């Protein structure tokens, strides 16, 4: 009984960590630009696919990871420079279609070059399950949890203790005022895409040994990351982490105790119910609209 619960708990927080990293990516870009980047899932896919393909080609794992992260960061930069920035102050629907177009484009390139097949990455430190209280946890899950924890702490430090991080927060609050005090908001915008791309790539790499990876793996992960970000309240960093973990746990518990067939529907039922009662997510700011 307890061991079963523990098993669901482990799987929930592992997936939840990935959702949290994806949600952080959404929030960072949303804060800097007001854009919901539907290509966030492709960053996750690029990280995973890039690493798998280089490892298969004989590149040592650490180097492969580094290159995959760098390539994804470049893609993020290109996305901002060539797709989001030229669009300027377009309507929300237009921006959604642009980022979805980018996401289809990236998927198309990966599919055309590397095919539609599924790829597996070897776990970082073996695949002997660890026994805890009758439940088992894969060593790779510990990697996921550890890396996520480190990233969350680093991000906290970056946004609260460094000048650049504070400049990003200032831009999120009021871009015009930020420019007035000498913050280069265009650079901040670019940085936000790079940061999100790096977060996505890392998430994709650490989860690749658990779930297989393929060119279309980013769609569902991206959408669930968006759910997690909305659940916590768009643009709220803490909200994104809590939203991600909550989503992972709810999904695992519902799959375990209710119906595994409807596992993928759980996040969407959850978010619709939450939005019905809290239209700005769990921790969203209660802003009043200015006329």
């Amino acid at each position, binding site marked *: 009984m307890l061991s079963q619960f523990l098993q669901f708990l482990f799987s929930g927080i592992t997936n939840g960590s990935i959702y949290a990293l994806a949600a952080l990516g959404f929030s960072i870009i949303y804060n800097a630009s007001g854009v919901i980047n539907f290509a966030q899932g492709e960053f996750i896919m690029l990280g995973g696919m890039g690493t798998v393909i280089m490892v298969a080609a004989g590149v040592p794992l650490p180097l492969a990871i580094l290159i995959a992260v760098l390539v994804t960061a470049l893609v993020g930069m290109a996305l901002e420079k060539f797709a989001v920035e030229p669009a300027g102050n*377009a309507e929300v629907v237009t921006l959604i279609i642009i980022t979805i177009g980018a996401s289809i484009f990236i998927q198309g390139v990966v599919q055309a070059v590397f095919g539609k097949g599924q790829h597996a990455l070897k776990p970082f430190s073996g695949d002997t399950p660890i026994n805890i209280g009758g439940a088992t946890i894969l060593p790779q899950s510990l990697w996921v949890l550890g890396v996520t924890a480190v990233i969350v702490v680093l991000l906290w430090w970056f946004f609260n203790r460094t000048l650049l991080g504070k400049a990003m927060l200032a831009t999120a609050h009021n871009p015009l005022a930020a420019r007035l005090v000498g913050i280069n908001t265009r650079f901040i915008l670019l940085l936000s895409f790079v940061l999100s791309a790096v977060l996505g790539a890392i998430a994709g790499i650490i989860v690749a040994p658990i779930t297989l990876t393929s060119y279309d793996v980013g769609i569902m992960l991206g959408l669930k990351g968006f*759910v997690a970000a909305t659940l916590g309240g768009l643009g709220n960093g803490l909200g994104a982490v809590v939203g991600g973990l909550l989503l992972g746990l709810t999904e695992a518990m519902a799959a375990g105790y209710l119906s595994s067939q409807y596992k993928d529907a759980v*996040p969407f039922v959850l978010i619709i119910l939450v939005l019905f009662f809290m239209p700005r997510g769990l921790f969203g700011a209660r802003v009043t609209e200015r006329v």
Partner: protein
Amino acid sequence: MLVTAAVILALPLFLPNPFYYDVVIRIGMNAIMVVGLNLLIGYAGQISLGHAGFLALGAYASGILTGRYGWPPIAAMAAGMAGVGILAYVLARPILKLKGHYLAMATLGMGIIIFIVLTQESQWTGGPDGMSVPAFSLLGRELSGEKNWYWVTGALLMLALWLALNVIDSPVGRALRALHGSEVAAQVAGVDTSHFKVLVFVLSAVIASATGSLMAHYIGFITPTVSSFFHSIELVTMVVVGGMASIFGSVVGAAILTMLPQLLSGFEGFELVAFGAILMLTMIFMPRGLVPTLAAKLRRA
């Protein structure tokens, strides 16, 4: 309106074989759906990333009621429209309270839930493999052949256009535009904004359901992919590429997006790349859509 009617009447003269008829019929059906969706997105300014769900519900209502229970197709279609209308009405109030990205999230979620239900409830829907749908018939006469379908679709498209233009020129249409401009200002001016938003949401959902039924009978086979997230995006893209708040833009958008996969089939293996690039470039360089942008250019020239 007259131009569209003329095009519909004249087009058969230029269609050499059933393949072209088929493409044009699909364009017409998509156009009917997109005209309805444009009322919601373009005129009322409310995003929906889940309308393919309503389309699919209509399609499956027709498929299940005619195929398994032997209902007459027209009754099944009406039942689908009524059911979707009620569902949309119940969902509309809480969903349309949301704004911007939160609204996008909720409608997206709704569409995905419908997709998953259609995929999982295979005893009703045939699951991922889909189900076949009997041909459309009315008063014992079966509708078959591309030519007959062409005229039916053409007539229904004209009906949809007439309906949409009337809605836009009515007090409802003015209220919707006021709503799109500024919801608060519209409220202050005494417009019951939530009432109108619900109205147009239900209208667009019912039109989607009717189109779904029609497509199901025409193609004769349906799978859950009609309700996929990607299909919802495709429909929204038709609205935006053609031009938001441009009814004829919707027809143009439907035509372009329906033909695009055929045109791109030459780029073997690179269809996705080309499709993504076209989406991005159109939206970057013509954020207002094709028809409004070209209309503005013509006026200046």
